[in-house]
């Protein structure tokens, strides 16, 4: 879901964003209910075919899958050990199908269009006190700051390692949290400075 829009002239790119989100929703449910590995395999091939129809480069498929391969491998191993080979294959096929389908939507839809659609869909929730514009901003900020925080984490880790710290990963959590909290103050100012408060 972290994939950024890739501009191409395809019918999938031109399709209305609401149709794509609806297809993702229905597709996601269908993937969860299919219990046959051959059917899921066919579904996976079909989704890859959609990447071809969207004229997306093969590298985008690998980019979409790269972040979840490690998690998928762990899930596969755990499922195999606890439930057997077939459930493990089904779980991994489902993850691959879902990630590729979700990435297909983000790769073929400009983020602003996606956020505007989510804001429009969330408008009925305004009566319960939820601001649709803020929801859209939260989604955008999440996409924007995951790579920034990952980079900060790597920098803190490198600084700790340079001073001989043990237990990589664990000790970086505190400094990262403090850095993130400081950043949120500045970010709040930046968002206000660019007029976000005008939106409801």
């Amino acid at each position, binding site marked *: 879901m972290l994939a*950024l*829009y*890739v*501009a191409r002239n395809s019918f999938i790119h031109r399709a209305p964003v609401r149709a794509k989100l609806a297809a993702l929703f229905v597709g996601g449910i269908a993937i969860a209910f299919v219990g046959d590995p051959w059917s899921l395999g066919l579904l996976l091939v079909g989704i890859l075919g959609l990447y071809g129809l969207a004229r997306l480069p093969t590298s985008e498929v690998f980019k979409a899958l790269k972040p979840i391969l490690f998690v998928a491998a762990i899930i596969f191993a755990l499922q195999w050990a606890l439930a057997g080979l077939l459930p493990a294959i089904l779980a991994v096929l489902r993850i691959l199908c879902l990630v590729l389908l979700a990435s297909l939507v983000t790769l073929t839809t*400009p*983020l*602003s269009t996606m956020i505007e659609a989510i804001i429009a869909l969330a408008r009925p929730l305004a009566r319960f006190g939820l601001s649709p514009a803020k929801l859209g*901003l939260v989604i*955008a*900020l999440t*996409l*924007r700051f995951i*790579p*920034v925080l990952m*980079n900060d984490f790597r920098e803190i880790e490198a600084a700790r390692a340079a001073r001989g710290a043990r237990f990589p990963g664990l000790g970086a959590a505190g400094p990262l949290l403090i850095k993130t909290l400081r*950043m949120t103050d*500045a*970010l709040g*100012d*930046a*968002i*206000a*400075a*660019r*007029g*976000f*408060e*005008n*939106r409801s």
Partner: protein
Amino acid sequence: MIECLGVSHAFDGVPVLRDVNLRLAERRIGVIGANGSGKSTFARLLNGLLIPAQGDVLVDGVSTRKDGRAARRKVGLVFQNPEHQIVMPSVEEDLAFGPRNQGLDGAEIEQRMAALLTGYSLADKRAHAAHLLSGGEKKLLTLLSVLIMEPDVIVFDEPMNSLDLVSQRKIASVIEGLTQTVITITHDLSLIENYDRAILFERGAVVFDGPPGDAIRRYLAIA
């Protein structure tokens, strides 16, 4: 024009600005001073992001206390760290963020965006992920994200911070070419040498206000 009338401010009881009285009307104004002298707080007061504990800041006669939004429409702020100012994942999305909040329509946003990206040689990075830009490009993006909102005044908080020499020269030349009123808060004294006016802060107070050459000499004497 921006006016500061008896402005004082404190954080957690610690004074950071003391009785600042300024009338900012020149085209190029530099603000210098040591770390902790109140420069960045001063920058945030100018567009109403911060409301002074005492006194008033007027932007074209309107108090930021009464209408901070109006002040922010007229006074743009380019922050010190671009990572904290870029709020959207891609270049074009980030550029569109401000004007969309201003309520501009898509065609107007597109027109402004295309003109800026072409004019500042960033057109090939339009769909680029913001986190993959170089430091200089990120700084330029933060400037363009303010320019696209067409403010009358642009406040730069340490525009040369963490930039390499090539990027520093590029940003300096971009700032020089701006038609807007520019207020630059900086440690880079060469940047403000040719400005119309320079203000020196020390421990939250204005200790010199006049020609940049004299301000720089005074700063070097007390530093």
